Structures are given as C-alpha cells and as structure tokens.
C-alpha cells in the first residue's frame, strides 16, 4: 500500500528520490535482469559476453521477471539483492 506523508520541510524545494551513490568500479556480483520483453535476452547475451571479456573477475548472474507487465515478485527482488552488488536491467523494445 502506498503511504502518504505530509512534507515537513520548506516547500520551495522539490522532493526528489535519493539515488544510491555510484561506486567508481565494478566488483563482485552483477545481476543481469531480463524483464521478459521481446529480445531483452538477446541484449543481455551481448552484454554478458562483453562484460565477461572486460571484467573477468566479476561474476554475472542471470535473472528474469515472469512478466514485464508487473513489478518483480518480492522473492526475486530479495534474491537479486542478497546475491549481487549491481543490477543491469534490460528494458527492451
């Protein structure tokens, strides 16, 4: 359920979602997430090959959402989060 709160601050400044700080280098595990749109898997295959070549010490893990029409199931999100340091999501079309 969406929670709605009232802004406690100065409304002359916009409310913006904070973005997680971007690391300077890629290490550890990278998730490649296919949202199940057509040809997303092809894009990810190419990325997989290029990243394997450029970042041999990084482990790539492949995931797919059951359908692009709905948000990723909680279990999938938890799984990706627990096992990976980065996610590349293929928004195909």
């Amino acid at each position, binding site marked *: 359920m969406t929670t709605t709160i*009232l802004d406690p601050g100065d409304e002359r400044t916009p409310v913006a979602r904070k973005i997680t700080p971007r690391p300077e280098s890629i290490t550890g595990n990278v998730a490649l997430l296919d949202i199940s749109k057509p040809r997303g898997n092809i894009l990810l295959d190419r990325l997989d090959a290029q990243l394997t070549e450029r970042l041999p010490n990084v482990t790539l893990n492949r995931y797919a959402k059951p359908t692009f029409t709905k948000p990723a199931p909680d279990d999938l*999100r938890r799984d990706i989060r627990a096992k990976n340091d980065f996610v590349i999501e293929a928004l195909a079309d």
Partner: protein
Amino acid sequence: MAAELPAFALDDMAGNGHAFPAGQRTALCFVKEDCPTCNLVMPLIEALGDAEELAVLAPGQTADGNRTLIERHGLTIPVLDDSTLKVSFAYGLETVPLLLMSDESGTEVDRVVGFDRAEWQAFFERHAPTVDVDWQSLPEWRPGCGSLTQDPIIADRLRAESENSPLRARRIEIAPADDVHEFLFDQGFTDGLPVVPPTAERVLRMLGGTRRDSQEVVATVPPNYAPATVEKVAINAVMAGCRPEHLRVVIAALEAVCNKVFNIHGVMATTMGATPVMIVNGPIRHELGMNMRLGALGQGNRAANSIGRALRLAVRNIGGARPGGTERSTLGNPMKFTMCFPEWEERSNWEPLHVERGFKAEDSVVSIFAMTSGPTLCVDQSSLTARQLAGSFGLSMEASQHVHAHNASDAILVVCPEHVDTLARDDFNKDDVREQIQKVTARPLTDLVATDDIGGGIPADRVAAMPADRQSRPMPKFASKGNIHIVVAGSDAGKFSGVFHGWVGGDIGSIPVSVKIED
C-alpha cells in the same frame, strides 16, 4: 429538514453509475453489512423499489459487505459502493440504517434513523403507500449501529481528505516497495533517529492540540527563512513523537527561537556547537506530566523529550539548518537532539524563572537559551553553609568555555533539591547565589592572561598596556548577575547541581527569549 442533500455519483456493485439527485423522488438508505438492524430493514428497502415513481438507492459502506447483502437478501435495488466512505462522510452519517426521502430536486423531505416500527410504517405510508409490508412481523424497535465514518482512525482520514481539510502541506507518496523509515532518512527529514511518519491522520490529530488556524504563520525560520505554519509545526511535532497537547509548547518555542534577538541562525551555524535549551514554567508542566524530579534533564519523559526534539526538527526541516550545511558545529552536541525540562517551582521558595522574567506565576511560559554544553556537574557534598555552596557553584561555573574567559554571557544553573535545602537554611535567594558566584570568581585581569603554560585568556601585552588600576580591578566571571539563570530540578537525593554553558551573548550573539504558551 428541507435541507439540500449533498449530490454524489456512485457505482453499484455491477459497475453501473448512479447519480443523485436525478430528477425524481428518491429514497436513500445508508447501510453496512455487519449491522443487524440494516439486515432487518433490507427487505423493506427492496420492497420500496416496487413503489411507483420512486427511485431507491442504498449506499453500503464496504464492498464485500455490499455483495453479501445483495446475496443474502436477493436485492435488486442498486446497492452503491461507498467503501471510500466519502458520501457517508459528506452526509455526516452517525448511525446506520439512515433512510432519507428527497424530492425531485434533491431536497430532504423526511428521515428515519435506526429502526422504530411505527416511524418506518408512517414513513412508508407517507411516501410509498402502495407498498405492502407485514409490519406486525417486525420487532417494535431496534437500535442502529455506528457508521464506519465514526471509527476514529477512519474519521481522521476522511477529515484529512475532505474539501474542508485544514491540511495544505505537500503530500509525498511513498511507494509500496519503499520502506517508510528509510525514505524519511533518505530525504534528510530525521535527526539521525527514526521519526513517526507524518501521515495526514496523525497531523490532523496533532492540530487538535491548538486553537490556532492551521495556516497561520508562526514564524519565519532561518537560515532559509521559510514560513512555518501551524500545520508545518504540527508535522514536525508528529515526527518528534509529540502528543497533540504538546503542540502549543512547540509553537511557542519556535516563536521564541525565531525572535531576531535569539539569533537562531547564528546559534545553529556557530562552530561552537550551540543549541536551544528550553525551560518550561507554569501550570502546563503539570498538565503535560513533565518530569521535574529524578532525571529531569534526561531521557524518559515523553513531553519534555518530544517537545525539545520537535523544535529541533522544525528548525532543521522548515528552516533548513542541517549539519554540514549551515550548521557547522565542530564537535556537535547531544543537546541538539532535544533539550527541554521544567523548573520544579514548588521545591524552593524562590521566584520561578518565568516570574523573574516578567510573567505571572499562573502563566505557562517557555524560555529558550542558546547553550553550548551541559549539564556539567558541580559536585559539592560537603558545604554546610549557603555561602560555601554558592561559592562552589561559582568555581564550577568559571570553567564555562575557559576559566580565563571572564565577562561572559549567559549560563544556566540547575540547583538540585539537596542544594536548595542547604541554601534555604541560610535564607539565600536566587540573587544571593548570583552575588556569591560573581564574588568568588572576580579576579584581576592579570590573573586572566595567557601564559606560556596556558594559552587561553587575554593577551599579556594587552593587559600590560592598561593602567595599573585597570589591571588589578577584579572582573567577575559573568558580565552581569542577570546572565546567571537559576532554576530548580532533580531528585531529592544527591548533591549534584548542573550548569549549562552559554554561547556568545548580547547583541552580537544570542539573547534568551521567553514566550507565553497560548492555547
């Protein structure tokens, strides 16, 4: 009676739209499924559907309940989905069933509430005489049930969403996948500890703590000079954990710190790490259950702790004073989370702080001081006379900022009850204490110069350049006795009084401000 009924448009459970008024006589019956009396009257409402030239609409308060009613009673009349309760709220519904009769233009001409057989029978005879009902098979009387709109939590939501809502603040939606608390941290809305999410319902309840209009501007808050409406203060009070009755203290406190002479901008910005210290006087201490005794300056009292925190959150969120931004304290200061306590006025024969500062004893007042540290203890378990004890206070207070820093501005001395008793035995009043503090700390300037061993103090060459009588003239710790603010608090056991050290005072710093707490 003869009132124009609120117009509405609702869908029935098959998704067909129904508008009211629709240019014909209409019977409106508000129902909810778990009400036995509503179930008793549903066959009667269904029968009304047979009346000529009469529309029948039955707004029901839950979608599942509506479906159950339709199935249970084989209803063919439109049962309308008012599960948002907006129409029920607009009608000011208190009890279901409520049966209303309107004319073609939507004006109310008749109503019955609950179930009184004679009333219902008369209603039917007036408006649907052709409908045949076996009235004798029905009980004489059954009470109605409370409308769902009367549920306190739902009522607050409905008030918050209604057109007359006092809430005008920007609404921020937090997505279902986001953690509310993490979101509040991410936005920088907290002081580093979790806050209570300021939902519309909570803020509305908080606003019940004041008679002021929610859009009244209480103060303009530095450093960003943003307007603080009563609503904005209430939002921050919710976040801090306040109860509605605490709100008026927070409002008064914010007014006080935003008084120009208090200089909240400088207080927040200084690298010395100053912060507002609030002292509450008057009857409100008892009304709010503020703790004046054991641990009065510490944690564990919701009123004091949350009021002090609300002030700081308001300054942070409305004014924009944040560490690393315009807040530049070198070390920081735990009092920046919250620092508020009441004076135990009844524990001494002294004039309480607010009376000394020009208010009536029966006034409730908040006084705010810019302090850089505290409470630092004066441990004196051996003084037997008032003079000795007040002298000990003086030496302890001399350490404020630096022992060599004389002619200083404000300090707060919190005298514990056992020390109060020692002073009372010799009939010392607050001013006698101040006098002794100034006396024992008065030193010639030559004692306050920087040396090879101690670098702090007045440069030696500056003192050397002064006339001899000036060099030897004693200078007390504080610029005046009026800079020593004395209150009583603490438990009856322990000879430990406390001192708050001040910041820069007067026109170039911060002058303490007291504000009467209004309803």
